[in-house]
């Protein structure tokens, strides 16, 4: 297909489903007392500084209990992650049920476009970096 780094469709969907399941499992586990508040991020452990997605799990959990503003303050990326998780669930279900490859094609088309135009990638990543700087300054 496009470029050298595409996976075969079967592999892609298996990974996508596994990632989604892992994400949901993590979300549910993080609410349990055993894990709650426990820092798993290696970056945080080594440098004791927050990484760009620090607090995003907290953010999504807060969203599930309806606290939209606290969710934003915990980490704005939580919104991105929530949208991706919900969207991916639907899209993966549709794709696997109908045997089409909508997500697969769209994913690699976007990836190809981003690869050709590093400027686009920079535009997408600059909010992430901005959030990171904001987090670093508020510790």
């Amino acid at each position: 297909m496009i470029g050298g780094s595409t996976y075969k469709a079967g592999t892609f969907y298996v990974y996508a489903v596994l990632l989604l399941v892992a994400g949901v499992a993590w979300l549910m586990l993080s609410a349990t007392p055993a894990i709650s508040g426990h820092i798993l991020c290696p970056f945080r452990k080594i440098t004791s500084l927050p990484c760009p997605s620090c607090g995003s799990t907290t953010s999504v959990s807060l969203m599930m209990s309806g606290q939209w503003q606290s969710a934003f303050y915990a980490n704005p990326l939580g919104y991105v992650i929530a949208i991706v998780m919900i969207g991916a669930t639907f899209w993966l279900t549709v794709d696997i049920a109908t045997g089409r490859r909508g997500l697969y094609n769209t994913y690699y088309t976007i990836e190809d476009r981003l690869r050709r135009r590093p400027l686009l990638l920079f535009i997408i990543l600059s909010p992430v970096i901005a959030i990171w700087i904001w987090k670093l300054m508020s510790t």
Partner: protein
Amino acid sequence: MDAQKVDMYLMAHSKYFESHNIGMLRQAMIDADESKMIAIQSVSLKDPTTTLILSILVGYLGIDRFMLGDIGLGIGKLLTCGGLGIWQIVDWFLIMDRAKEINNNNVIAALSY
């Protein structure tokens, strides 16, 4: 293409490709015509060792994946803090083969245009 030139290329670039693909790659290069030589030389190959070093040092930011061209996975790694640390460690083992696989795919793609 001239088999000797192909062999020279493969010897000079052996570390960029997975060993089990070399046979197929060699055959594909020999079957292609001479004009493809320039196309192959201009394929940007990712150094597996450099990628591994990146992965170990800054893997949790997804930089290793970005450098390989796996933009989507790179963003995913970045947003999930190295996949909660787990993906980061898994990638230490996967990333060299992934770099070689990408090199292989890129050269084959250059040969088929």
